[in-house]
């Protein structure tokens, strides 16, 4: 790795901006010393390759990933989550190269589960967890993005062809609110033990706000909640409706999971209900997509022939397991729904990787990267 030189940290920052190595915001300058200490905190050798990141096909070595983490503003506490995230997105099922290159706005959404939520710097799962003010969330999510830029080579308009993108392409990381959730940890549905930690990653649109106010006196309240979430999942603009078979994330606030809990529904029940309710009519598809729809439906398992009635309904998702249902956020009226890209060879597969909390050696003063 060749080293750049600069007269001051601020000259270095300007240089990194000019080289296109930032996301447009200030970074911590990845001096050799800071990167070396971040590498040390991973517990791995600097040249260990975690995966290959397209479209540049750069090798994501521990050293390069540590560099991205330093630039993003991470503390050594955060690095186990960053390492796991890189492992996850480098799995072939994630189609990272295609996702980086697509014209769709998709960005990797990181969901952190298990004890790492606390051990790795208090990753927020409550009020405003997808907004500013939470250093762990902000810098961990950004470390993945800076790796995608500098190791994977994503640059807007030349290699990253997102028409508009969305602000989650700066940083997009939350923790599950496991303690207050009626559901078991989301990671357990992917085969992890409750006391293990994992990051679950899906390519996602920005969150779509979903308003619902319940009424405990009305036993049909849960039906209304499931219906409005399903309607947002089936929103006629999303790729899920046009391409189907992607993944959709549903992040429910505690008041909404309370409605689910009172109705006695498990996570699997919610997934099944949402998959069954999220439909769109053949007539709407013919109206909004006269050319594309008739071409794609020929390849679709859910055979809808030219003779289908306008009232017939098509399911938006084929696989209920591709609906990620979890609790996060403060208590109130909103659930968040993230539609997705759905394209690429694996059509928006969800990936995950275990977070290793005992990998790093404890080094006194290690969290003090800032001197």
């Amino acid at each position, binding site marked *: 790795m060749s080293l750049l030189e600069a007269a001051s940290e601020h000259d270095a920052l300007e240089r990194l901006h000019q080289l296109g190595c930032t996301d447009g915001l200030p970074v911590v300058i990845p001096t050799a010393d800071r990167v070396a200490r971040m590498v040390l905190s991973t517990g791995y050798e600097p040249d260990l390759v975690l995966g290959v990141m397209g479209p540049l096909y750069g090798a994501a070595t521990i050293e390069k990933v540590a560099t991205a983490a330093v630039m993003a503003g991470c503390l050594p506490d955060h690095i186990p989550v960053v390492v796991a995230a890189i492992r996850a997105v480098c799995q072939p099922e994630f189609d990272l190269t295609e996702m980086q290159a697509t014209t769709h706005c998709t960005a990797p959404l990181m969901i952190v589960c298990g004890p790492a939520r606390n051990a790795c710097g208090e990753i927020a799962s409550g009020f405003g967890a997808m907004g500013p003010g939470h250093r762990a969330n902000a810098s961990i999510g950004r470390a993945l993005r800076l790796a995608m830029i500098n190791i994977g080579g994503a640059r807007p308009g030349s290699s990253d062809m997102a028409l508009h993108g969305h602000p989650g392409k700066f940083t997009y990381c939350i923790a599950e609110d496991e303690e207050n959730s009626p559901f078991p940890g989301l990671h357990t549905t992917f085969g992890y033990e409750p006391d293990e930690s994992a990051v679950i990653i899906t390519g996602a649109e920005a969150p779509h706000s979903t308003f619902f*106010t*319940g*009424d*405990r*006196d009305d036993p049909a*309240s849960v039906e209304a909640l499931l219906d409005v979430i399903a309607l947002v999942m089936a929103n006629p603009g999303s790729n899920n409706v046009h391409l189907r078979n992607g993944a959709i994330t549903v992040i429910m606030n505690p*008041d909404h999971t309370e409605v689910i809990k009172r109705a006695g529904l498990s996570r699997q029940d919610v997934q099944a209900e949402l998959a069954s309710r999220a439909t769109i009519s053949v007539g709407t598809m013919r109206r909004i997509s006269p050319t594309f729809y008739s071409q794609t439906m020929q390849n679709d398992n859910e055979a809808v022939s030219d003779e289908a009635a306008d009232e017939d309904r098509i399911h938006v998702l084929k696989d209920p397991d591709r609906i990620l249902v979890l609790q996060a956020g*403060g*208590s*109130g009226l909103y659930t968040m729904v993230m539609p997705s890209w759905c394209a690429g060879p694996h059509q928006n597969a969800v990936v995950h990787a275990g977070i290793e909390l005992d990998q790093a050696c404890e080094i006194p003063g290690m969290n003090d990267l800032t001197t």
Partner: protein
Amino acid sequence: MRDSISVARLGIPSVALVTEEFWPQGDFFANSSGMPAVPRVKLPHPVAGTGEDKMAEVASEITPSIVEFLSS
């Protein structure tokens, strides 16, 4: 909360009803408005959507403190 502060400013007795979850925000507004002692009563959270019985229960629990504030 803000309404209550505005009303109090006009010299009209007022009490803000603030749920537990929003109590810190209430404090914040009271302080930033320069009326840190503006009367407020704490409700459990959530109240909305919890049903008639629960709301009646909450109402009967808090009414005395509201009356106390307004008559003091």
